[in-house]
């Protein structure tokens, strides 16, 4: 008598291939569907132009979720020495000189199209990728700190002491300069979001919108189309890709 539970070789192969397809192919399709970014094996392209819009009306006083998320993502722990500890993103409280309106906003590398830090860097360690990310090559930075003098936004930090237990996705080291790099490791692995944006969304504030400025459907493009944005120190004509709205 034939056992009903036995399976033919043909059936076994067909079902195995189907199962493997579900395991390996479907996630790829979904991940590509959710991220408009490049797969990891493709070179950075100028077709993408990463940018960020910050709506200061939505930024909540006392909330530090973006700062905490940045620290977690990049392994930024301090030594309780605020003058020398690294800060890639910080919160500022401003008062309008005329109206006395109080504004709270996050300040980070503004990822200029004409970055003064890259202009002055003697070795070219500070560089701007074709997709607009301004970052420091940790292998060629000699620690001269000239870029820190040149940055109009005080966005850079120098690593003043020995570090241990750095994260593999965020290479850092004593004697080099560092700053926000739009979570480049996440981006290069297919994400279209930064840790600070994700944290801000998770808190429900949605003050930070990140994405591809060349894609009209990206969150950043939608945010910019909804509300007029402005660049800080526009007189310097640095064409930052981080812009602010609401003040």
């Amino acid at each position: 008598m034939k056992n009903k539970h036995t399976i033919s070789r043909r059936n076994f192969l067909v079902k195995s291939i189907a199962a493997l397809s579900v395991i390996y192919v479907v996630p790829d399709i979904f991940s590509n569907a959710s991220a408009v970014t490049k797969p990891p094996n493709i070179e950075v392209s100028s077709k993408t132009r990463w940018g960020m819009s910050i709506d200061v009306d939505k930024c909540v006083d006392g909330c530090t979720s973006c700062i905490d998320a940045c620290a977690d993502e990049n392994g930024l722990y301090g030594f309780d020495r605020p003058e020398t500890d690294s800060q890639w993103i910080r919160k500022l409280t401003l008062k309008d000189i005329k109206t006395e309106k109080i504004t709270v906003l996050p300040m980070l590398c503004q990822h200029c199209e004409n970055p003064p830090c890259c202009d002055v860097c003697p070795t070219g360690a500070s560089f701007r990728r074709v997709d607009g990310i301004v970052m420091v090559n940790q292998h060629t930075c000699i620690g001269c700190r000239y870029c820190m003098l040149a940055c109009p936004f005080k966005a850079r930090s120098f690593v003043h002491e020995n570090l241990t237990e750095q994260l593999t996705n965020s290479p850092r080291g004593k004697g080099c300069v560092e700053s926000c790099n739009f979570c480049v490791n996440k981006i290069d692995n297919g994400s279209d979001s930064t840790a600070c944006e994700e944290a801000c969304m998770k808190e429900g504030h949605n003050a930070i919108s990140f994405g591809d400025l060349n894609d009209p459907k990206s969150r950043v493009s939608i945010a910019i189309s909804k509300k007029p944005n402005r660049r800080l120190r526009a007189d310097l004509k640095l064409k930052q890709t981080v812009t602010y709205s609401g003040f």
Partner: protein
Amino acid sequence: MDKIIFTKFIINPKLFWFIFGLLGFLVLIGFASSHHMENEGHYVTGMTNQIVWGLPHIFAVLLIVISSGVLNIASLSSVFNKELYKPLAPLSSLLAIAFLIAGLAILVLDLGRPDRLIVAMTTYNFKSIFAWNIFLYTGFAVVLAGYIWTMLDHEVKKYSKPVGIFAFTWRIILTTGTGSIFGFLVAREAYATAILAPLFIVMSLLYGVVVYYLLLVIINKLHKTIIESEVIENLKKLTVMFLFANLYFLFLYHLTNMYISKHLEFEIFILLNGGVYTTAFWLGQVLIGIIFPLIFLLTNRMCSYFSLLISSLFILLGSFMSMFVIIIAGQAYPLTIFPDHTIVESSFYDNVIHSYAPSIYELGLGIGGIALALIIVLIGLANLKFLPKIIQSKNNNKNLKTSSVD
């Protein structure tokens, strides 16, 4: 006609080794300080994420500016055909190369990653004035070495003038480059002006002359020779001229800043309410560095030798204060990120005047650098014939410059 011969530095061997040992010890302290800074990280210094360049940069920039300036004497001889300075020219180039090496050593030893010097020497971003300066500084050392060769070796002496003109041009470009390190910083009110380049050039001319004079006085004391009064009078005239030029460019720099309305608040900070920085400007840079020396030199109450000596000491102190004002005060004034807002709160000191208290390690590195310059001079003088001795001709005693007393 007088004949100039050059001799080695002749001093009491015990005194030589004492000076050598003392300078060597200070050089070691400099290296030890640097080693500690690199080993522990820069948190042991007074430099922070606010004041990113500190005391080592004051020493380094000053030494590089002086290096360019001390070459004045050789330039006057080779380029401008001033016979008076011909015997003094080789020493001038030795001082230039010594101060340059010392300034560069401090600059390199203060880097976050001095072990990556090879990267700095092989990977260039030619848009960076700093990268150009690496070429200008190392190139200057090579040009100076060639210049010294043409002055000391009779067989190639005929090339002394063209090499001298080349060195003169090079050093003007070099000091322009040094001034432009600050002048090209668009974001900071203290900098972002091309006038810093000529200001640095006149500062180099002034500091170069006084450092040359001070070292000449010391060398002559030890070598038991005297400086001729004609040389002193001429150096005095040069110092007065450069002091006026320095005052003029300093005035013009601040006037320019006052005229640019977005720089006005920085000017108020420096000139009126900047605390230690205002004091350093008025007392250090202006009074000690320029006005007092002018009074000493122009009132003729002292003999030229002493008035120039005291003025030189004051100018040297003033030069240090000038660098403090340019480098530290320029960074201490917070960045204007929001021109129409005041920053009420920041975890990164965006809203305060930054303070700077240098650590003993930075001081050690700076002093070590100066000692390195002086020990190079000492070794150079002891081993090569840099010091002039003039054999007077029977017919002509007028062109006597530096004569031996023994």
